[in-house]
């Protein structure tokens, strides 16, 4: 055997070993306790890798991928149930099921937590991190590349940014901070919270909203069963402004996912049709 023949052989051997190590590092059974990690893991993981999703994963109001994840069994985010699933990796949000997460860590399970997505750029980072955790960096890199390409086509800076009040139950309104604010900014809008200089967490009473005369008032679709917090969004005074727009499902605003750009596209189209 010539020495030059050894090089490809060694390379092949190295690749095989590396691949074996990679397979070993990739967790075979992943359990997710949070609706956002559910969807990221489902998107990035290999088929069958995600063995259980959180209780909200099958609710189309909370999860944009609810229909796709319908076959994945649901857990109730209790430590006992999760332990019985013998997971290699548990994914959780940094604020979800704290007691369960503490107990699972105490029992020696590998738990990775994700902070809530606060911006569109957080989405890229979360995709990359999830790719590493699940042993699927190539899949993650492809998703990030698609994300960047699509965001570039969607982002434009209009001459005037309309003032938008995304009105939420309990007289709350979307601020310029966080993922919601970032989505609205990317779509070429500015929020009423910025226009009125509202403090973080400050509510916006109905009368103040109407008197501020925003260019658009956005409300989510009504629930099937009534509650006053949501009935507020159907108040006749909002309709009387003539600026009311009912927007798509709330799921598009909750988690930072590649599909968050669908929400950006929807808002951009809405702004263009209104301007």
């Amino acid at each position, binding site marked *: 055997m010539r020495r030059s023949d050894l090089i490809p052989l060694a390379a092949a051997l190295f690749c095989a070993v590396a691949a074996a190590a990679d397979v070993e590092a990739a967790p075979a059974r992943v359990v997710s306790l949070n609706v956002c990690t559910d969807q990221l893991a489902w998107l990035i993981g290999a088929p069958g890798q995600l063995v259980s999703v959180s209780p909200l994963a099958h609710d189309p109001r909370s999860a944009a991928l609810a229909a796709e994840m319908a076959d994945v069994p649901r857990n109730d985010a209790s430590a006992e149930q999760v332990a019985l699933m013998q997971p290699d990796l548990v994914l959780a949000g940094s604020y979800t099921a704290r007691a369960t997460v503490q107990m699972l860590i105490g029992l020696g399970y590998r738990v990775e937590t994700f902070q809530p997505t606060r911006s569109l750029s957080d989405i890229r980072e979360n995709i990359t991190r999830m790719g590493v955790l699940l042993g699927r960096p190539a899949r993650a890199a492809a998703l990030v590349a698609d994300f960047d390409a699509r965001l570039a086509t969607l982002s434009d800076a209009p001459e005037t940014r309309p003032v938008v009040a995304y009105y939420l139950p309990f007289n709350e309104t979307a601020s310029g901070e966080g993922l919601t604010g970032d989505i609205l900014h990317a779509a070429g809008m500015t929020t009423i919270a910025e226009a009125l200089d509202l403090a973080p967490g400050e*509510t916006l009473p109905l009368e103040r909203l109407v*008197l501020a005369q925003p260019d658009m008032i956005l409300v989510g679709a009504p629930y099937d069963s009534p509650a006053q917090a949501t009935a507020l969004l159907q108040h006749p005074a909002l309709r009387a402004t003539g600026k009311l727009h009912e927007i798509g499902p709330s799921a598009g605003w909750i988690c930072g996912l590649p599909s968050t750009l669908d929400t950006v596209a929807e808002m951009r189209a809405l702004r263009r049709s209104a301007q």
Partner: protein
Amino acid sequence: MRPLPLAAALCALVLALLAASLSLGYAPIPLRALLGAGDPLHVMVMQQIRLPRAALAALVGAALGLSGAAMQGYLRNPLAEPGLIGVSGSAALGAVIALQTGLAAAFSLALPLMALVFAGGAVGLILLLAGPRGGSLTLILAGIAVSALAGALVSLALNLSSNPYATFEIVFWMMGSVADRSLEHLALAAPLIALGAALLLTTGRGLDALTLGEDAAQALGVSLGRLRLTLLLGTAAAVGAATAVAGAVGFVGLVVPHLLRPLCKARPARLLWASGLGGAAMVLAADLAVRLVLPDRDLKLGVVMAILGAPLFLHLIYRTRRGV
């Protein structure tokens, strides 16, 4: 105080508070916007947001004050009050059931009517248990039982809802609020409150006669059965409709008749209309206080009313206990 000056003073107070309630907001809007004059935006805010709030506060207060005075007159017990004896709580349960079963969405009048039926059931139960003389102990104990059961069932119904926001409404049904109510709510409640108030006002002569005792009242030609039925229907309609749109506001029916009784020379008939007007003024004032103290926090009316009413309630119980 003579009836005419008393009525004039109370009417002036209610009108002043109504004007104050309509004027308070996030922009100075002249009252003529109410009639549709001026900036269309101001007209809309005045007619669609401020008017329902002020009018409902006045109507709810009138319904509760009047019902309280009528029940106290009939049972001859100053502790009889719709909130304390569970009538408001039961009305809230009826309203929540109408909303959560979808009945109110299919037929909007179902909301106040269900509240009326449940309030009527509670009044009937209390009258049955307390008997014609209205013993304090029975009244309060029955009230505790009915209120607790109604409150628990309201919580249960709201917890079963598929809307995650429904649970937060428990506070509204137990404490009451007129914030962000619309003209639709006003249109639903106003006719039934007016009907209930009209029925209750007819009981004046009977209640006056009843102060002499049941035998004397019957000798004067008062039919106690009919009086009881009018009281039941009137209270159920007034409290039911008020609670269906504004939640259970407590203590109005207790505080207002107590404050006005000395001015009415303890004449139940006079106390009826005086308490109606006084109740309207009281709830309008409470709603103003709610908005002035914490404008952005949606404080409930029941909070203010309980702070005023609970000490008075304790005082009344203390006096009743000494009297026993």
